C-alpha cells in the first residue's frame, strides 16, 4: 500500500478548507461587492430611522446617542457578513438532489467541509466591508470608544458569534431529514432572530421583557454582543462573560447537533433505499 503524501490531520484539513473558501470567494469579486451593497441597505434603513428618532428626542434614546447608534449599525454590517452561515434550507436541496450520498461516503464529517468553507470566505468579506464602513462613517458620524481590550475582545467575539450561528443553523437544517416543509420552521427562526438578536434594534430599545427573554437565547451572542464589544459599550469582565456564553452555546448546540445527526442519518438511509 502506498503511503499518502501527507498525514491527514484535522488542522491541516481546516487550513486547506479555509484556503479554498477564500480562493472561491476572491474569484467572484463583482459578486461579493454586489452582495455587500445589498447587505448595506438593511442597516442604512435602521440607521436612518433611528437617527431621526434620536434627533427628535434630543440626541439620546435608551442610553444610545445618535453617534453610538451610528457606530452600532456600522459594525452591524461586519457582524452580519461574518455571521453568514450554511443556510438550513440548503439541506433540502442536498437531500433532494442525492448530494448526501457523496458526503456520507467520505470519511470526514460534512460539517468540517462546510464550516471551513464559510470560515475562509470571511477574510474576503472583511476586506470588502472596509469601503462600505468608510462610506457609512463619512455619512453618519459614528462615535466609537476605542480600546485595545475592545478590539481584542471583538476579534474573539466575532468568530464566536459565527460559530454559534453556524451550529444553530446547521442543527436546524436537520429538520429537512424529517419533513420537506421546513421553510415555515426556518421562517419562525428568522423572525425570532431578527427581533431577539439586536439585528433589528439594540435590545435596550425593546420592551424590558423582550430584553430579558433574549438573555436566555443564543441569538444575542451572535449579533449584539460582538457589536457592543467593539463600539466600547462593555468592560473587560462583560466581554469575558459574553465569550463564556458563546462557548456555552457552542457546546449546547454542538451536542444537540451530534445527537440529532445520528438520528437523521439513520432516517436518511431508510428513505434512500
Amino acid at each position: 500500500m502506498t503511503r499518502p503524501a501527507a498525514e491527514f490531520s484535522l488542522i491541516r484539513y481546516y487550513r486547506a478548507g479555509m484556503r479554498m473558501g477564500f480562493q472561491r470567494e476572491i474569484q467572484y469579486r463583482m459578486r461579493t461587492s454586489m452582495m455587500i451593497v445589498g447587505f448595506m441597505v438593511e442597516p442604512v434603513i435602521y440607521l436612518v430611522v433611528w437617527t431621526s428618532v434620536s434627533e427628535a428626542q434630543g440626541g439620546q434614546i435608551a442610553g444610545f446617542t445618535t453617534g453610538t447608534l451610528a457606530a452600532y449599525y456600522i459594525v452591524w454590517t461586519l457582524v452580519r457578513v461574518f455571521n453568514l452561515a450554511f443556510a438550513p434550507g440548503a439541506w433540502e436541496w442536498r437531500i433532494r438532489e442525492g448530494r448526501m450520498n457523496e458526503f456520507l461516503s467520505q470519511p470526514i464529517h460534512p460539517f468540517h467541509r462546510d464550516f471551513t468553507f464559510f470560515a475562509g470566505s470571511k477574510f474576503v468579506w472583511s476586506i470588502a466591508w472596509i469601503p462600505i464602513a468608510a462610506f457609512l462613517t463619512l455619512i453618519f458620524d459614528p462615535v466609537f470608544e476605542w480600546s485595545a481590550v475592545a478590539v481584542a475582545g471583538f476579534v474573539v467575539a466575532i468568530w464566536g458569534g459565527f460559530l454559534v450561528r453556524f451550529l444553530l443553523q446547521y442543527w436546524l437544517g436537520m429538520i429537512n431529514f424529517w419533513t420537506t416543509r421546513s421553510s415555515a420552521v426556518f421562517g419562525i427562526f428568522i423572525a425570532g432572530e431578527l427581533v431577539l438578536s439586536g439585528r433589528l434594534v439594540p435590545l435596550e430599545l425593546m420592551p424590558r421583557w423582550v430584553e430579558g427573554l433574549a438573555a436566555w437565547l443564543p441569538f444575542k451572542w451572535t449579533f449584539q454582543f460582538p457589536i457592543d464589544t467593539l463600539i466600547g459599550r462593555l468592560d473587560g469582565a462583560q466581554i469575558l462573560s459574553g465569550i463564556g456564553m458563546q462557548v456555552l452555546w457552542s457546546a449546547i448546540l454542538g451536542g444537540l447537533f451530534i445527537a440529532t445527526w445520528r438520528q437523521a442519518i439513520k432516517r436518511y438511509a431508510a428513505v434512500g433505499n
Partner: protein
Amino acid sequence: MSQPAGPVRLAVTHLRVSALNELQYRINFWVQLVNSVLALGTGLVAIAVVYTHTESLSGWSQPELLVVLGVHLMIGGVLRTFVEPNMWQLISDVEWGKLDYLLTRPADSQLIVSVRAVNVWSSIDIALGLGVVVWAAQEIPNNVTLSGVAAFLIALICGSLIIYAVWLTAVTIVFKTINIGDLMQVLNGVYEAGRWPVGIYPIWLRGTLTVLIPLAFAITIPAEIVSGRVGWWWILAAVGVTLAALLVCRLVWKLGIRSYSGASA
C-alpha cells in the same frame, strides 16, 4: 385554421395553467401563510418599537407608516406571485439552453417570459397587505372618496408594473455576468427599503430609490394617496414613470435578445 391567440389571451392562458399547477399543492398554502404572517409580524414590531420612542417619524404618524407597510406588502406580494417566478424560470432556461426554443416561437418573447410562472400562494401577501392598508386608513382623519380609491388602484397597478419592469431590466442586463440568485438577493434587499417612506432617507439613497429603482413611485406614492399626503395629480407622475420604466425595459430586452447567442451552446 384558427387565428393565433392575441397577447392578452396568451398571457391569461399561460397564467391559468401555471396557477392550476400550483394550486394542487395545498400544504404550501399553510407554509406560505405562516411565513407571510411572520413577515407582517416583524414589520409591525419594527414600527411599534419606533413609536414607543417617538410620536412622529420625520412627520409620519404611526397609521400613515402602517399604510406604507401595507402597500409594501401588497406590491411585494405581486412581485413574489407574478414577477420573481418568471425571472427564475428565465434564468433556468438560459442555463439549460431552452431559451432558444422560446425565441423561435412566433409570439412576442418578452410577453412569454413574463407570464409563464405564477406562485399562487404568495398572493396571500396581497390580501394581508390590503388588510393592513384598510385597517390603518381608518385611523387617519381623511375622507374616503370614490376618486381616492380609484387613484389608489391606479397607483398600485403602476407600482406593480414598475417593479416588473425594473426586475426584468436588471435580470436582462446582468444574467451573463452575475449569478441570478445573488442578484435577486440584492434586489430584495433594496426592496426592503420601500417599507419606510422614501422621503426619510438621505438624498443619495432617495435619489436611487426615485430614479434607478423607483420605489418612491411604486410604494410611497400609493401610500401617500391613501393617507391624503399628496394630491391626485401625483398619479400622472406615477403613470409617466411607469411608461418610462416599461419603455426602458422593452429596449433592454430587445438589445439583450439581439446579442443573445445561447449560454449553453
